């Protein structure tokens, strides 16, 4: 059944609710499942962040329903610092793994990779289903950490040992909660591995006739390279996870040196090194940043080209930039460790490589602006989000130039400058990519258009909101505000910065509220939106040649043939202002 080309010529849609909607092997159903999982996660993550921001400026406020949610963490309705830290850990973990990794890659990638390259399904449909349900299990295990004695872990999404390795004596949540956290991450590793194998094999083997690598839409390139990053990165994280799990449960001391006295207890560990975890973790952790952002970059490129009605500027350069980012992404993990006690010579080497990765990122930005130059821009909602992505990408990327230099990192490390930086670029920019994808592909996924007016309102409120939240973080970072502080009562210099934090918290409330518009639009349009035509945006890629939503076997049993690249807009001499990828050769004036 898996010979590459004549791959199950026509397959009938499965009957029965379970096989069709729950344990489906259809990449489109799985894509939607992933997307909805991410949608659920993003709202949980956002709720946690709003609670955190609230606690930061009103640490002593009494809110009765806090106690209902967390009887121990918020006894009497007052949130404790440890509850704050566990919210922070869960916010980071949920957002990084279950939103930024899941939505753009597993969600959109699953749905649209086969459609865009002209395949009937992914290469391994059953593994695809398993991968989703493993991810689901990982999310359940992670959320379960809230409900065990001690609550969720408080060591941050990076889980640096010894804090994460010595167990409950290091703080509440470091017991069962932290163990569940690691189990969840291990499950997620397995799921990502299955997903990555599927994506790579699909991209290599199942491209339709004529779909050369250099004709693939940039989204496919981004998913492909992201899958390679997952394949390699998660493998190392799995190794680190195994060691940490052993440290916690089997009494080993991979990450625990001799002479530890935690909470007045002398520990019998000997010989390990906390830095080893940091190396292993960031070996995965930095590529992970690109796993989160690359699909957004690919999507932005496509959306910009579609709505600028102009071919993408420098397609080849864009492809090489994606490849270069993927390659260099593995060479820069040490910049997370400039002040961690790492060998200073290694630090200098890492800093040069870190700056080198700025180059392909700059190429992408220039090419996006080059694409818009001389264009005829249609301001639809997906286009607005793509433009917002470019703006945020520049803002977030620029601050990376500060952090990539070990000299400047000596002050900025672990301040709010870092928080602002990575939220701008891998948080919000990536989320903008997801929003652009949602508004762009919703018609294809659900067969109905989303409401444009609501979409635009959502965009403007969000765009203003995120700048208002995350820009001031850079300012307080420059003033030296350390991150991961539940409140700012203990330090004199932090007291002066409180008004800025108050502003950011209100901006966060505002932005979070604006997301309800999106939620409403999403579910309302699913039922009541205008029926979507086959190709509402007049785009050229293959997913716009099939009905909305596509039938079970995508192309009705006849695989398309591809004749040209993915970005043929405003072609001189053509009848329409665009040429579909599968349109046979037509007379075109040179």
């Amino acid at each position, binding site marked *: 059944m898996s010979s590459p*080309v004549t791959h199950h010529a026509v397959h009938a849609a499965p009957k029965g609710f379970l096989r069709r909607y729950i344990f489906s092997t259809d990449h489109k159903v799985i894509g939607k499942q992933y997307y909805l999982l991410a949608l659920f996660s993003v709202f949980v993550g956002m709720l946690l962040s709003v609670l955190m921001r609230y606690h930061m400026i009103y640490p002593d406020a009494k809110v009765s329903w806090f106690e209902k949610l967390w009887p121990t963490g918020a006894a009497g309705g007052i949130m404790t610092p440890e509850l704050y830290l566990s919210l922070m850990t869960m916010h980071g973990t949920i957002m990084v793994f279950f939103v930024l990794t899941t939505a753009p890659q597993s969600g959109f990638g699953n749905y649209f990779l086969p459609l865009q390259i002209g395949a009937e399904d992914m290469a391994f449909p059953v593994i695809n289903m398993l991968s989703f349900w493993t991810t689901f299990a990982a999310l359940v295990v992670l959320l379960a950490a809230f409900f065990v004695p001690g609550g969720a872990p408080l060591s941050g999404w990076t889980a640096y040992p010894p804090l994460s390795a010595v167990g409950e004596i290091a703080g509440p949540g470091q017991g069962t909660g932290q163990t569940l956290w690691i189990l969840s991450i291990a499950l997620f590793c397995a799921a990502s591995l299955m997903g990555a194998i599927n994506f790579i*094999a699909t991209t290599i083997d199942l491209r339709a006739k004529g779909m050369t690598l250099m004709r693939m839409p940039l989204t496919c390139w981004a998913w492909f390279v992201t899958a390679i990053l997952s394949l390699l990165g998660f*493998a*190392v994280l799995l190794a680190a996870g*195994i060691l940490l799990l*052993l440290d916690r449960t089997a009494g080993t001391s*991979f990450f625990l040196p001799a002479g530890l006295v935690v909470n007045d207890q002398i520990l019998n560990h000997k010989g390990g090194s906390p830095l*080893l975890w940091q190396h292993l973790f960031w070996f995965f952790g930095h590529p992970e940043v690109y796993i989160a952002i690359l699909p957004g970059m690919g999507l932005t490129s496509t959306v910009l080209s579609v709505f600028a009605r102009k071919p993408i500027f420098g397609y080849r350069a864009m492809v090489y930039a994606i490849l270069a980012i993927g390659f260099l992404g593995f060479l820069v993990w040490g910049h997370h460790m400039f002040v961690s006690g790492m060998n200073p010579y290694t630090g200098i080497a890492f800093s040069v490589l870190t700056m080198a990765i700025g180059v392909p990122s700059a190429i992408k930005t220039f090419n996006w602006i080059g694409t818009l130059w001389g264009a005829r821009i249609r301001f639809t909602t997906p286009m607005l989000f793509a433009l917002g992505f470019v703006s945020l990408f520049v803002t977030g990327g620029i601050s990376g130039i500060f952090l990539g230099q070990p000299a400047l990192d000596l002050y900025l490390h672990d301040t709010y400058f870092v928080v602002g930086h990575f939220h701008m670029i891998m948080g919000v920019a990536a989320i903008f990519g997801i929003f652009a994808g949602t508004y762009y592909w919703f018609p294809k996924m659900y067969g109905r258009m989303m409401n444009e007016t609501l979409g635009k309102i959502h965009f403007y409120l969000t765009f203003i909101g995120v700048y208002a939240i995350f820009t001031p973080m850079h300012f307080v970072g420059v003033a030296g505000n350390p991150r991961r502080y539940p409140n700012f009562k203990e330090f004199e210099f932090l007291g002066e910065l409180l008004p800025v934090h108050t502003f950011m918290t209100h901006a966060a409330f505002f932005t979070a509220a604006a997301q309800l518009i999106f939620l409403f639009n999403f579910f309302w349009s699913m039922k009541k939106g205008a029926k979507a035509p086959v190709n509402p945006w007049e785009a050229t890629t293959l997913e716009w040649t099939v009905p909305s939503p596509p039938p079970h076997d995508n192309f009705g049993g006849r695989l398309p*043939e*591809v004749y040209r690249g993915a970005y043929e807009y405003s072609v001189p001499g053509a009848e329409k202002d665009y040429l579909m990828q599968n349109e046979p050769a037509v007379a075109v004036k040179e």
Partner: protein
Amino acid sequence: MAEARSETLVPASAWGGGASPFAMNSKKLGMWLFIISDALTFSALLVAYTYLRLATPNWPTPFHFSPSILFASLMTFVLLSSSLTMVMGVHAMNHGHRRRAVGWILATMAGGAAFVILHATEWRHLIVDEGVTPFSNPWNEPLFGATFFALTGLHMTHVIVGVLYLGVIAIGVGRGKFKPEDVEVSGLYWHFVDLVWMFIFPLVYLMSVHI
């Protein structure tokens, strides 16, 4: 630009789509990709082992010729031989000898099982007779046991999974369900397990040199 559109309609290379560039089925490619990923997991563990060993001044070197090295050498022999039987199984299957293939696969499983039994015996010896556990040992370098059990334990898990996997394949082949490529894919996994041992064995057992 003109050249983008003037490309010929027929793909110029295998990368042009509509064909598998490696002339192999996707399952095999998928297994190769899994092997790459798994190899990196093992590499990370071995590098972690090296890292910790280098940073430890008095790493114990308790493996003597008898019984540990002898045992481990025997295990290596068993594993290598099971690789040979596996490749014979694939070979037989490729030539359409279904029954013979089942026999070879069963032999491979026997080799795997023997490896696991030998390894378990050695673990028992280390734990019971020598007092080595993941968190303590007579030489007061707890990391010795930790790295040993973590590395060999993960490898042993792979062997056990491999034996079960081959069992499924043997049944499938016996019933005439599976194709030669399915056997070949399972063979890839089995050889990979063998390959990993080729690095664990010298690094963990034979590197009894004082650093």
